[in-house]
């Protein structure tokens, strides 16, 4: 599914990723933990193709395709989804219109027929109900005036609609109350399938009680410095990153 080898990248001439090696086989969910500023969001932006991140070395293959050669929208069409750490506001753009435009863009990319407004509404209502989101969120501007938690849930709704092959969740659990945390976890777990993988970036072991990862990686100083099973998250929770450095 996803294979990252020796990936290095810099921002404004400053090296941030210093050689990432990571493989996420199809059907697996991996967690990435690491201190603030260690490069987790940078990794998610590099994978999704954001401008301003210069790749200085290494390679990323996604289902056999050279991911780094694709435009961001082509990566999305190929099945890559990023739930943003800080979802962006689009004033005046109705959430429903945005979601439908995105869904149809991705469907077109997959060669599937586009959904009209009615078909879309039916699907969206279904998915929203599953995420306990109030329907009026469809009418509002994309993320405009949404609370922190609502923004995160809106990201999960988009993921549920777009049904990606690889989802990267960048601190989607931050700022969520306990109930919302479960809802988000359910959203991810509902997508679990042999051809679905996820990279879950988080600071808290708590989320991993609900989304049980196959592997946990520790990203520090732009490198994966340790990998292990779910127990690694518990260990970090107990003793912090100092223990990793010592290891």
């Amino acid at each position, binding site marked *: 599914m996803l294979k990252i080898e020796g990936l290095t990248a810099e921002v404004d001439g400053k090296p941030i990723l210093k050689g990432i090696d990571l493989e996420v086989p199809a059907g697996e969910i991996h967690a990435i933990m690491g201190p603030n500023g260690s490069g987790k969001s940078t990794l998610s932006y590099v994978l999704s193709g*954001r*401008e301003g991140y210069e790749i200085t070395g290494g390679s990323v293959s996604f289902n056999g395709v050279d991911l780094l050669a694709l435009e961001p*929208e*082509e990566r999305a069409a190929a099945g890559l989804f990023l739930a943003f750490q800080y979802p*962006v506001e*689009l*004033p005046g753009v*109705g959430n429903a219109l945005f979601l439908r435009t995105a869904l149809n*863009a991705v469907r077109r990319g997959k060669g599937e027929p586009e959904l009209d407004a009615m078909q879309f509404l039916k699907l969206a209502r279904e998915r929203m109900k599953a995420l306990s989101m109030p329907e009026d969120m469809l009418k509002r501007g994309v993320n405009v005036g949404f609370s922190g938690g609502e923004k995160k849930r809106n990201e999960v709704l988009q993921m549920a609609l777009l049904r990606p092959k690889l989802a990267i969740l960048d601190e989607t659990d931050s700022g969520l109350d306990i109930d919302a945390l479960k809802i988000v976890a359910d959203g991810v777990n509902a997508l679990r399938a042999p051809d679905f993988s996820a990279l879950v970036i988080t600071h808290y072991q708590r989320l991993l009680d609900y989304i049980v990862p196959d592997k946990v990686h520790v990203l520090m100083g732009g490198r994966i410095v340790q990998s292990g099973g779910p127990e690694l998250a518990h260990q970090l929770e107990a003793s912090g990153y100092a223990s990793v450095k010592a290891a």
Partner: protein
Amino acid sequence: MPAVTETIETVQSVTEGTYKWGFETDIEMEFAPKGLSEDIVRFISKKKNEPDWLLEWRLKAYALWQKMEEPRWSAVSYPAIDYQDAYYYAAPVQKAKPKSLEEVDPELLRTYEKLGIPLKEQAILAGVEGAGETPADGGRLPVAVDAVFDSVSVATTFKARLEKEGIVFCSISEAVQTHPELVRQYLGTVVPQGDNFYAALNSAVFTDGSFVYIPKGVRCPMELSTYFRINAKSTGQFERTLIIADEGSTVSYLEGCTAPMRDENQLHAAVVELVALDDASIKYSTVQNWYPGDAEGRGGIYNFVTKRAQCRGKRSKVSWTQVETGSAITWKYPSCVLLGDDSVGEFYSVAITNNRQQADTGTKMIHVGKRTSSTIISKGISAGRGQNTYRGLVRVAPTASAARNFTQCDSLLIGDQCGAHTVPYIENRCMTAKVEHEATTSRIAEDQLFYCRQRGLSEEDAVGLIVNGFCREVLKELPMEFAVEAQKLLQISLEGSVG
């Protein structure tokens, strides 16, 4: 991968030029000799078989024009126009004014078909006859159309049905013949002949345009629309529109326009006069899509237009909505003179400038009556090397007690070579009046574009979506069918503006 093919197609369509209305119609035309003189004014008047009073009226305008200086106060710049090097009359050769669509030159009908303008009543009527205000599922509301080709009106649809309600909707030359008393009573009462340089020119040589009269208490049962097309070379277009809404009547009117792609600049100097009497309401929507010139700024229409409404009656209302995407230069200020107590003026505008386009547009709200109120919502979008100026005047006379105005001007910049300017003039001479002005300037942020692209939208689609969101307050004022067209137009106008 399909997404890749699509991106390539988008890029190609951008580099090949995206003005989709730039074709030329090959049709036999009749021209007056080039240049402007008293003789030409007489020629036009005679061609139109006009009564003496109208000829006199034109000649007075011509005399005024000769003494006037071309104004240069706007923020736009362009080379001097040679007024003697243009044709002032160009008309498709027709024996007599066709009585039905069957008599209209098929080449002309095809032109309008290509432009997507419905000139066939039956086609639009099918399935909606009797449906009233709401169209049948997926059906379209009928729209009555007056089609103006170069200097003359070639067809007006739905006339019979409108006549049943006592509504007059025809070309202004026809109205001069059939309703001379109405034309004489109102022509030039909102925009006098000597109002400004271009209005004087228009008054002297106007060739056609639309005339609308809605009788007392009548709600016009359908949208009325005029579609202007400049086709002939080196031809100025000077149309004149006059709309009168009598007491308690309501009308919604749309105006659309296109022109072929040419290297030369063509002048369009129209005059629009609206009169709303007691409790009457006029909604005037424009989707202006004149040829904007190419990416280097060659060719395109100079759009110097005088549009003004008088809310003469108590509680009367005029609402201007404009989407300005075309023209090399746009210079216009649809205005409302609020004379009647409690009358209301509204101005909703989206103006886009891309490549080398220049727009200096805005409105004037003149409050005279008591408790008059006005709302101005202006959205300016600049891309490429486009320059966009909002210029607005809110004047409150001492008589306009408790008048209110709210103005909001938002500018959106795409790229770093374009400009947006806001020039509000406020003259408040009434203690009890309240005038509010808000302005913002923003840029399409990189994170917004990336967010959209991460969700699978192409860069062009992302810009289109964000721009449409930015303009939403204005677009929602447009009649439904136009709103969809306008949204597409916004996107087309901005193709190639990013990346």
